[in-house]
């Protein structure tokens, strides 16, 4: 019992601003509906009946970048797509996060060696927070990636360093 809590009535808790902000932020991650290739089907499966991303507060897929916090790059990024991807990322409000889902988004994957039209890793285009490996990653892997992102959000602070 700290001094201040003794002074307050029951039903009131004290915490830091950081904790409260991060608590709210990490439990309402709105991903963007941004399926590119095969991984998008697994992303849909994560949002659908069995895996139900809503349990983690991240099931509200937004169709527009302006309402979303997380861009899940689910699939192969090509040179034709790269500029559009960057533009979508620019349109997202801060704080924004990017998850590279699957081997293609991480490094080009199976198209690494001979793919003349495949960007070898989406981190060349936008900064990536979380890499989820797999081809395609299983839904459990994507959920794990989301939980690691929540951990990352937990470390944020509004204090100026």
């Amino acid at each position: 019992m700290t001094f201040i809590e003794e002074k307050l009535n029951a039903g009131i808790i004290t915490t830091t601003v950081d904790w409260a902000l991060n608590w709210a932020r990490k439990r309402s991650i709105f991903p963007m509906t941004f399926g590119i290739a095969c991984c998008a089907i697994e992303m849909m499966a994560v949002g659908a009946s069995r895996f139900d991303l809503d349990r983690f507060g991240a099931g509200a897929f937004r169709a527009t970048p302006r309402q979303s916090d997380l861009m899940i790059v689910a699939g192969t990024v090509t040179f034709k797509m790269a500029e559009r991807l960057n533009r979508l990322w620019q349109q997202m409000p801060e704080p924004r996060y990017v998850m590279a889902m699957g081997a293609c988004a991480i490094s080009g994957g199976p198209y690494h060696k001979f793919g003349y039209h495949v960007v070898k890793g989406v981190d060349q285009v936008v900064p990536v927070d979380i890499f989820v490996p797999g081809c395609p990653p299983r839904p459990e892997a994507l959920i794990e990636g989301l939980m690691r992102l929540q951990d990352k959000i937990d470390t944020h602070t509004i204090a100026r360093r």
Partner: protein
Amino acid sequence: MNDIRLQSQPDLSYQDEIPADVRTEELLVNMGPQHPSTHGVLRVVLQTDGEMVLKATPHIGYLHRCAEKIAENVTYPQFVPYTDRMDYLAAMNNNLGFALAVEKMAGIEVPPRAQYIRVIFAELNRIASHLVAVGTYGLDMGAFTPFLYCFREREWILDLFESACGARLTYSYITIGGVRQDLPDRFADMCEEFLDFFEHKIVEYNNLLSYNHIFIQRTGNVGVCPAPLAVAYGLTGPCLRGSGVKWDLRKAAPYSRYDEFEFDVPVGEGRFGTVGDCWDRYFVRVLELTQSARIVRQALQKLSPGPVEAKVPRSLKLPAGEIYSEVENPRGQLGFYIVSDGGRSPYRLKVRGPSFCNLSILTALAKNCLLADMAAIIGSLDVVMGEVDR
């Protein structure tokens, strides 16, 4: 509403009411490549006049992954995983198409058990693929629940696939010479159990979505594709059958022992509008669910013990020559054109993606339709961009 759609020329009579000093012009609307109802990275540039779409120009290539160039650099067995990633909703069927083409050229005889296993998985994958098509089409039309229902059943099919090969989406299970490994124990029972459950669920989809009044209003008489137009644009699969053309490669040129099975080929009848409208294309897929389940049941009966893989040389070389071979995929005819110079990898491999041809009709279908109908038309074609761009 219907009058506007069926007119060949847009109704421009309202222009007379516009005061002379108001300048009007056509507006270009860019739809995609990131748009929830384009099923991937399709971009359509719409030339609009108010709510009317005068012309729709699809732009593709945002997922061009160079599969044909890669094929020239890898060996035949190494290319099997790349076929998975073309039409990623029907990976088994893609594996089958490629394996059949190579086997025909190399003269490999596949054991009967493997052929029936292939049919079982091809048809289960057809069900899974059509479930996604039906579910997401509901999503496009604003019905969220069917999507969850369809994915529930799809997960069950994926469990069956997982028990056989360990993967959920990209299987590489059907390989050159047979299948990768034999079925797990009790697979037939698990499959029967699923089919018993599944066949009742089709009624549920129909009640929930197919005969839903709002859904019929959104899709009936929209995007009408007459049979001659469909053939001229090279449509195949449910899109062609939706226009009333009874053409199915499994009947017309049976492969992998499809001639031993009894099944019907459903065609569009124009129950809620004209033959070849979006509802017809959608409903052909629903009807095919039943037929695929029928085939799986028959194939399970025919399974008898035996080897599941023919002897294939470790470094497979095809004789010099060429072949064009097609299979009936959930989206249409998937063709592989292989030119071999006698080496271990193809000299040239060309893939005829059914979605590629099906999508090319979009400009013709989406002429003078309403803006809101674009989602209905694109969704009813059920394209997979991985296959359009390859």
